[in-house]
């Protein structure tokens, strides 16, 4: 079966615009393959090029070398098969909730009445029925994340790219959102790449956890299958012995890199 997403030997080197001699290689020779319907978490210390990798998969960033294949075809331009959920605020502040959710349909030329009906349906599914006429600034952080989730899911993307989407939320809201994400995902299994620096979040959500080394020149240093049964509750699953076992194993692989990453940051 062709994988949903295949990043092969990706290297990303950034060159300083002011001084071309200053270069920074964020990711080197990284290969990441995500199967159809697979939920993969990518963890790594801060500044390890996780977002860079995701932007390459999204087609927002062209790699310096390496190949990106989406459903077996080489990627050119923005990845139309993928939805992207950003870490920071990405809603259009001048559009109300409903218009934000239906934006993608509008760009595709879906007729307005139908787009709004589907938009309302999605708002209901993410628990925001009746909030369609609010503007982003009138919503709480958690509600804005729900809008962003609906905005992505309404387009029914084959691949979901998520860049620490819940990291700005408080722990309770976060677990709530994680459970909702799992519920929506299990109803319609798509491929997910979920970036996070939180190992517990990574394990509790994913089928597979990929650990990246500390930057610069980070690359995968570990690949762990998560064989926890589904459906899961992200809060409860953390208390199971298997979870703790997995956590211990992955953490052992990660620890050294986290310390390295920390030392890197201290130097700057």
């Amino acid at each position: 079966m062709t994988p949903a997403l295949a990043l092969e030997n990706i290297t990303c080197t950034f060159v300083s615009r002011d001084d071309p001699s200053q270069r920074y290689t964020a990711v080197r020779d990284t290969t990441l393959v995500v199967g159809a319907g697979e939920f993969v978490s990518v963890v790594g210390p801060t500044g390890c090029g996780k977002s860079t990798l995701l932007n390459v998969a999204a087609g927002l960033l062209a790699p310096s070398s390496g190949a990106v294949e989406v459903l077996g075809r080489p990627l050119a331009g923005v990845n139309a098969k993928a939805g992207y959920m950003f870490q920071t605020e990405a809603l259009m502040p001048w559009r109300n909730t409903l218009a934000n959710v239906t934006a993608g349909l509008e760009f595709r030329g879906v007729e307005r009445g139908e787009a709004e009906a589907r938009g309302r349906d999605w708002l209901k599914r993410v628990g925001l029925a009746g909030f369609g006429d609010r503007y982003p600034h009138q919503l709480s952080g958690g509600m804005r994340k729900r809008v962003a989730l609906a905005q992505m899911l309404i387009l029914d993307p084959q691949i979901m790219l998520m860049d620490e989407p819940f990291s700005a939320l408080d722990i309770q809201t976060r677990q709530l959102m994680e459970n909702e994400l799992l519920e929506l995902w299990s109803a319609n299994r798509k491929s997910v790449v979920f970036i996070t620096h939180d190992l517990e979040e990574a394990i509790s959500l994913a089928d597979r956890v990929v650990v990246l080394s500390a930057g610069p020149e980070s690359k995968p240093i570990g690949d762990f299958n998560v064989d926890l049964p589904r459906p899961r509750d992200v809060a409860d699953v953390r208390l199971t012995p298997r979870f703790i076992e997995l956590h211990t194993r992955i953490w052992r692989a990660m620890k050294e890199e986290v310390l390295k990453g920390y030392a890197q940051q201290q130097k700057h």
Partner: protein
Amino acid sequence: MRNSRSTEGRLRVYQVALLLALVLLWYVLTSPTLLPPFYFSDPKQAAFNFGEPVEVAIRLWKWFASGEIYIHLWVTLVETLLAFLIGTVLGVIFGMWLALSPTASAIFDPYITAINAMPRVILAPIFFIWFGLGIASKVALGVTLVFFIVFFNVYQGVREVSPVVLANVRMLGASPRQLLRHVYLPSAMSWVFASLHNSVGLAFVGAVVGEYLGSAKGVGYLILQAEGVFDMNTVVAGVLLLTAFALILDWAVGIVERRLMVWQPRSSETERV
């Protein structure tokens, strides 16, 4: 709440009292008969220099009673609105273009700086030669004033579009044209609306100054005429009328602004969830 309202009420009383005191002072000091002259040798000199409140009020009353003022107000209003609209449209087009095209921006940069630095009121004589003494020359003057306000705001607005919002909209499948229409334009317009008071104000300045420098209609023209015959009362009446006009314009802009900027958080507004 009640406390702040009563404070506000008291402030209003003080404000009106101050106005009345000033008018009274004006009346007492300019009346030829009320006080013996202590500064000017001629008792009529003060009234000549500063006008008299009663005469000014009569002047204003006559203007409105006879209806002769309406055509002048109308002309000034039309000039202001045209200058505002044309200046805004040009400013938006140029601002978007230069902000999105680094080459064009680099080429035009020194010219924009130079033209912006130039005292543009001095262009009025040129506009009179080009467009005559009618509405067009005043509109042209107003446009040169409005254009730069809008231009710089649009430029800034486009440059400050959040890269995350931009990436998000691209991921949602927007074409370059849709990006322009749904991201750059709304972001730029929010800056234009934020400068609405300024640009309408300057359109008004352009209209009145243009009229004052040479025209056949408009409130600025009335002032120019009165000045020619040293009719200070009419000059003062014209100035007061223009002030009231500007206040009404500003108030109308405030209403429009509130309607258009509904999506922007206001600092005083608490989050409604």
